């Protein structure tokens, strides 16, 4: 500093020499100026320091030289430059902030209104205008309630509260029909007084509506969840039970607070362990699925449930499962019951003796039972779903025309129906069954038809039986008629034939009288045969049976019948063929009839077969036959056969296919076989032939050797006393002549009473009768049947011959059993009477017979 002073002194202006005083004066003046300048600098420095907020310079702190050197003015002005720069930067930041705020203000999704503490509007954003639709040109300075609330001074005004409390206030308000959440924030001045309020109001209407909707949705969900009758559960990934609904708790008997201790595997019934792994795979999220399981209740009960389980995932991570189950315990029980019932029904249906077919509403087969399977030839599996007319086709019994299925009729009318008349069911293989059926609609619970049930029965056999019964009845009624006249007719024939014999005895052979008598005899014989055939229908024609080797009888009869025709008869009659209990005459007649028919059916010749075989009929095997041993005779021809429509009638009396046929041949045959307790049937194919099958009761016994009939000596003179009992005078007279001719002495009685009296008288007078010939029946008197008992009582050794053209009981067939020694069937010839008398008289009388 001292240097500077020196320098300044030497750098003064170079002027001319001045006086000391002048110089001293100048020094004084200069010092004064300097001091003034320094004072000025100090003052300005202090002024600047005051602006800077610091203390003023103290004179002792800095001398003038240091003050000048320090240059405080330079320092402060440099600092000012920096302050100004800082202010400028700050202003720029404020401007940016203001712009940003303005942008936020206008673009905010909520309304913003700035008011002063008197609630006059200072600023607002665009959203406010939109929300409250006020005119921006008049908004400035208006009270906010004029723009928003439209009522003065609301109690709940948050802006007023903010002014009063100085704190941010919030209030939900309904303004202009919408719901707002208002937030009022106070802005305070530097003194801490509230000068402005920023009102931010958010329109909550949509959000509120959404919330309300959400709430309602929650309620609905809760209602569904809690009031569902299904069991709903949500499980965690560890199979723990997260939450369940009321139905679940009720069904399983747990309280909600017990759930945290449970796992779903505690709830699977031990009986359902099989479904455990499957269930596990579902509850562990390995698969979604529908399945059935059994839960165990807290009390140990079983609940069968069925339901769906699906996995809950979050970001592909398995979080657990949700499951909805339905208690199907009752349904299961009913299903089991229904299954058992159905099984029972199916078994019942299959066991029913009738055919049963059920159909659906379209007439397609639903079910077919075993009998129906057998008759139709359709199996259940094949028949199901097929139209009924395919499985059950019907044709009319008489016209052979297809018939409308009764099922279709029922489906159309809705009413049960029965088959009118009978129809043939055509089975799958073409065979035909005569059936009767009935169809009923199946009604559902609303009485709407849902199908039909068809029940049918094969009546082929029944029809055959009925036909036979009809036939039997026809024959029987004819028999009664024939029997009724036969008695008298035979008596007449007996007289005729007897008198012819007598006439022949008294005429010269080869004379015209004799020839005439022979012709008369022939005609009488035919009349006798006709009467005999008629009688066969009647009870009087009961066979007089004895054990016979039937094979020989067949062979002889058939050979005789085919003799002279172009028909050859082949026999298959084994040696071991059983003997049969037969009336040889009648069975011979049967064979003869069949052979004659066969021969006539083969006018150009041919071969017929007669087969015999032993058969044992089992119980139920044939309707017409009792169980037991039978000889089965099959007579088969290769003739023109019998048309189908005639085959049912050929055993009827007076039904004949042959011109001039009597119509009695096969009727007689039928009657004879029936009376032998056998059976006869016929099968025929037109142009191929007919086969007659006969069953005759057989016996394991064998017949004894055949005794050849004795040959009567025509000229042999007999002796003996005969008592002839007959109510018919013609018979008595004729027989009397014949017996007289034969050499017997004969007496007559008209009835049993007279005969006994005469027999008694003769015995008493020691001229007893050798033989009594008794008529079996005497109208209005005592016939042979009763008289024989009295006679044998009188004389146990009495020899009586029963005589009748008509036997209405078993006496004729079993005359020996009744005590008769012989039998003579009216009308008889002289030879027949002679033979029988000789035979009986040759017997030793015994009381034991």
């Amino acid at each position: 500093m001292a240097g500077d002073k020196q320098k300044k002194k030497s750098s003064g202006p170079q002027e001319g020499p001045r006086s000391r005083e002048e110089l001293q004066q100048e020094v004084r003046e200069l010092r004064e100026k300097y001091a003034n300048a320094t004072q000025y600098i100090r003052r300005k420095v202090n002024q600047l320091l005051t602006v800077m907020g610091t203390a003023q310079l103290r004179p002792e702190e800095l001398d003038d030289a240091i003050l000048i050197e320090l240059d405080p003015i330079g320092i402060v002005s440099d600092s000012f430059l920096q302050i100004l720069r800082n202010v400028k930067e700050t202003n720029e930041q404020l401007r940016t902030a203001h712009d940003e705020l303005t942008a936020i203000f206008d673009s905010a999704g909520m309304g913003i209104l700035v008011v002063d503490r008197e609630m006059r509007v200072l600023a607002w954003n665009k959203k406010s205008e939109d929300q409250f639709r006020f005119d921006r040109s008049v908004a400035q300075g208006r009270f906010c309630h004029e723009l928003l609330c439209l009522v003065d001074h609301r109690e709940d005004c948050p802006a007023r509260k903010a002014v009063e409390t100085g704190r941010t206030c919030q209030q939900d308000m309904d303004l202009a029909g919408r719901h707002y959440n208002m937030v009022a924030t106070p802005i305070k001045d530097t003194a801490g007084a509230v000068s402005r309020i920023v009102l931010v109001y958010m329109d909550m209407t949509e959000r509120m509506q959404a919330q309300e909707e959400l709430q309602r949705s929650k309620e609905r969900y809760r209602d569904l969840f809690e009031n569902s009758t299904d069991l709903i559960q949500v499980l965690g990934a560890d199979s723990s039970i997260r939450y369940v609904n009321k139905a679940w708790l009720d069904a399983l008997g747990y309280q909600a607070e017990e759930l945290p201790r449970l796992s779903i595997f505690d709830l699977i019934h031990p009986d359902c362990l099989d479904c455990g792994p499957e269930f596990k795979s579902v509850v562990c999220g390995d698969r979604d699925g529908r399945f059935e399981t059994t839960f165990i209740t807290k009390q140990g009960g079983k609940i069968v449930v069925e339901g769906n389980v699906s996995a809950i995932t979050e970001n592909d991570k398995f979080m657990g499962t949700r499951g909805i189950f339905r208690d199907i315990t009752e349904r299961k029980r009913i299903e089991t019951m229904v299954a058992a019932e159905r099984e029972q029904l199916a078994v019942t249906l299959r066991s029913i003796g009738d055919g049963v077919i059920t159909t659906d509403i379209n007439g397609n087969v639903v079910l077919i039972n075993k009998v129906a399977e057998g008759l139709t030839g359709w199996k259940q599996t094949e028949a199901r779903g097929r139209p009924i007319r395919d499985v059950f086709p019907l044709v009319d019994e008489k016209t052979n025309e297809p018939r409308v299925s009764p099922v279709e009729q029922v489906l159309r009318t809705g009413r049960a129906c029965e088959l009118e008349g009978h129809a043939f069911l055509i089975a799958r293989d073409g065979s035909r069954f005569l059936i009767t059926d009935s169809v009923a609609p199946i009604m559902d619970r609303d009485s709407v038809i849902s199908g039909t049930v068809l029940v049918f029965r094969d009546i082929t056999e029944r029809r055959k039986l009925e036909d036979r019964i009809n036939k039997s009845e026809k024959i029987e009624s004819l028999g009664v008629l024939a029997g009724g006249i036969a008695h008298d007719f035979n008596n007449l024939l007996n007289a005729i034939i007897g008198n012819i014999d007598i006439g022949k005895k008294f005429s010269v052979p080869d004379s015209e009288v004799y020839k005439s008598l022979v012709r008369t005899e022939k005609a009488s014989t035919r009349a006798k045969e006709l009467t005999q055939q008629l009688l066969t229908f009647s009870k009087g024609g009961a066979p007089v049976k004895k054990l016979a080797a039937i094979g020989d009888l067949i062979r002889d009869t058939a050979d005789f019948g085919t003799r002279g025709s172009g028909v050859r008869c082949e026999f298959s009659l084994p040696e071991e063929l059983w003997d049969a209990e037969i009336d040889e005459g009648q069975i011979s007649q049967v064979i003869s009839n069949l052979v004659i028919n066969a021969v006539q059916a083969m006018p150009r010749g041919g071969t017929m077969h007669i087969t015999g075989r032993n058969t044992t009929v089992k119980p139920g095997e044939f309707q017409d036959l009792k169980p037991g041993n039978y000889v089965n005779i099959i007579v088969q021809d290769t003739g023109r056969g019998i048309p189908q429509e005639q085959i049912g009638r050929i055993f009827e009396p007076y039904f004949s296919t042959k011109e001039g046929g009597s119509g009695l041949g096969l009727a007689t045959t039928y009657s004879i076989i029936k009376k032998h307790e056998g059976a006869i049937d016929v099968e025929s194919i037109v142009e191929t032939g007919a086969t007659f099958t006969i069953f005759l009761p057989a016996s394991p016994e064998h017949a004894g050797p055949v005794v050849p009939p004795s040959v009567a000596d025509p000229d042999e003179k007999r002796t003996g006393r005969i008592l002839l009992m007959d109510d018919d005078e013609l018979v008595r007279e004729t027989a009397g002549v014949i017996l007289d001719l034969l050499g017997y002495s004969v007496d007559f009685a008209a009835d049993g009473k007279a005969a006994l009296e005469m027999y008694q008288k003769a015995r008493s007078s020691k001229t007893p009768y050798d033989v009594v010939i008794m008529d079996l029946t005497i109208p209005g008197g005592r016939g042979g049947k009763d008289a024989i008992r009295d006679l044998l009582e009188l004389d146990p050794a009495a020899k009586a011959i029963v005589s009748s053209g008509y036997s209405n009981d078993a006496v004729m067939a079993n005359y020996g059993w009744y005590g008769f020694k012989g039998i003579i069937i009216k009308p008889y010839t002289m030879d027949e009477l002679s033979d029988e008398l000789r035979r009986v008289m040759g017997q030793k009388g015994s009381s034991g017979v």
Partner: protein
Amino acid sequence: METIEFDIRGQFCPSSLLVALKEVNSRADSLRQGSVRLCFLTDNRDATITIPESASNMGYGVSVEKREGYYCIVISGKKD
């Protein structure tokens, strides 16, 4: 960051303020760039008011730490 320390203990305001301002002014750019900070050690209480206030007005960040018998006024970069 470089810290330059000035021990102005024993000086009173306004000289302590003027010294501090002179140093701040001469390093204005380095301070603004954040490459340097200045640390003034003072035992004058007035200076703990005047220096921070001035520095703050100039846009700098200031902190005052009390130490044993004196204060440390740190001036750095821009204020927050």
